């Protein structure tokens, strides 16, 4: 009977105690790493704030137009504040990963390994989105200015359309990089993009043939309706 009780309660309990004994230092180490992560992040955030103030980095961001772009994207905080916040959470995130590694749980280790393998994809996708957004803004602006200077009435629509197409293109590339619904995204993008091009071709063919004719005539025959002889220089 005593033997049975020992097998039923004492041994599992002993095993549980052994496991706890083995695991407890890991938990404590992890908690310690996590706490020190928060403290380090907090210190770096404060130091960065002081340095930014000293070097007048906010002024640089304002002059470079980065502050305005952030504001346009709906972020009301100053670029330095955003940068400090970003750095803070990146440090916390790194320390959290270390803390999880120190737990030495096989399932967790497996998950982390897969996560780390996937991380470059996330990085490249984010980069694609950022570059896409910047290129879209730049190209959109260039098209807007040149078309307005050429007197094209639909300059605004044209610039917005190009901007949206570039953003969609970047988004499709980013999603493809992440491997989310790869084929669906590709097919959807091809259909949408092809549809836009076809719609534009038909629109130009039906509605804009006179404009195209005028443009080509002006370009190659040199005829112009603006018959002034202005010399601006």
């Amino acid at each position, binding site marked *: 009977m005593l033997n049975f009780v020992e097998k039923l309660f004492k041994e599992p309990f002993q095993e549980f105690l052994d496991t706890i004994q083995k695991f407890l230092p890991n938990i404590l180490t992890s908690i310690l790493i996590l706490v020190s992560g928060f403290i380090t992040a907090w210190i770096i955030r404060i130091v960065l704030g002081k340095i930014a103030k000293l070097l007048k980095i906010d002024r640089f961001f304002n*002059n*470079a*137009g980065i502050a*305005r772009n952030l504001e346009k994207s709906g972020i009301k905080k100053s670029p330095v504040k955003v940068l400090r916040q970003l750095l803070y959470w990146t440090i916390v995130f790194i320390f959290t990963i270390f803390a999880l590694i120190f737990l030495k749980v096989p399932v967790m280790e497996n998950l982390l390994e897969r996560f780390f393998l996937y991380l470059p994809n996330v990085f490249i996708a984010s980069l694609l989105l950022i570059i896409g957004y910047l290129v879209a803004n*730049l190209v959109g*602006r*260039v098209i*807007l*200015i*040149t078309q*307005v*200077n*050429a*007197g094209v*009435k639909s*300059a*605004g629509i044209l610039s917005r359309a190009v901007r949206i197409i570039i953003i969609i293109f970047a988004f499709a590339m980013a999603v493809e990089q992440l491997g989310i619904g790869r084929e669906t995204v590709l097919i959807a993008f091809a259909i949408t993009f092809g549809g836009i091009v076809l719609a534009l071709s038909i629109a130009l063919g039906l509605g804009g043939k006179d404009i195209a004719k005028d443009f080509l005539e002006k370009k190659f025959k040199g005829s112009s*309706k*603006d*018959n*002034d*002889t*202005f*010399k*601006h*220089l």
Partner: protein
Amino acid sequence: MVKHSDILLDDVNRKVNEIGHADILIGIPSYNNASTIGHVVKAVQTGLLKYFPDKRSILANSDGGSIDDTINIVKESGIDLKSILIHRYEENLFKISTPYQGIPGKGSAFRTIFEIARVLNVKACAVVDSDLRSITPEWIELLVSPVLNNGFDFVAPYYHRHKYDGTITNTIIYPVTRMLYGKCIRQPIGGDFGFSGRLAEFYADKKVWETDVARFGIDIWMTTTAVANGFKICQSFLGAKIHDPKDPAASLSSMLHQVVSSLFNLMEEYSSVWHRVHDTENIPTFGFVYTVGLEPVAVNLLPMIDKFKLGVKELSILYKDFLSPELQKFLSEMIDQSEDKFVFPDEIWVRILFDFAVACHKKIMNTGHIIKSLTPLYLGKVASFVIESRDASFDEVEQRLESLCRTFQKEKQYLIDRWGK
């Protein structure tokens, strides 16, 4: 053979070696100007023989790769000495015609001319455009003599032009240069200048040949560099300026961009100079000023106003980043104005230009985009100017421009305050 300069081609170095030294150099930049350059070359040759017969002179043509007959015409153009009443003639006029190196543009052509002047150690130089129809031999005397005989370093041209000719000069370059540097140079980007050998050397040494200075920015750069560096300057009345349009392929937007970006870059470079200037002064003027007949200029107002309205409507998204709210409000109200009520007041135009200059200085966004977005507003100002001066005489237009210059002067503190340190 001694190679004097890396900028000059080998055969030019050889020719320069043969010539040795010269007193006067007249430079003519060209690019497909076969229809006009013959007249310009003859006027220059006559001017040199008539007014400087004892001086050793060079006519240097710097060409941008013309595919028409420009170079042959330069080489073959000669003058009938008897018909211009020249009886005594010494063989001391030389001709050099060479393609230039670097970015295609008038500025690169001038760089070659400065370099030849430096190597030949000339005392006085002049440059004249190859598209001129109204140039006479007297232009050479008026551009060179103040340097050779009166000790001036820079001679700006002063001509009578049609009231609608040179609108970038009238609405931007003349008033802004005058307000910034305090000298009343009526044609800062006239294109035909006289300058001393030492100023030619000063120009040649500058490292600006990869910028807009190498293109249409050269004229404002030459004038500003001379003024801001304290060279002795004057202007000469040359009569009428009648010329073909500059580079017909170049759009207004890119011409305006090249000139205005050079102006704004010079504002950066000489910021400490123009901050100290508070008054304007007249400069010595040579030549006998007389009234001249001018070719009519046809103006089509409606496309200008349409482009202005389109620009204000579509580019307001950019303007709100650097134009003050009052200016934005004014511009948006102007969209609804009909042609007869279309007035662009000087005060508004001056502040718009200042806000553009400050936006470029503070790099609010890509400076090329900022300056190119000025085109519709410039067209609005020109349209308003045309409407206002429809029935105005030459003198009345000059008075009108004088008033614009005074407004620039009055508002200078606004620019200084916004420019910052």
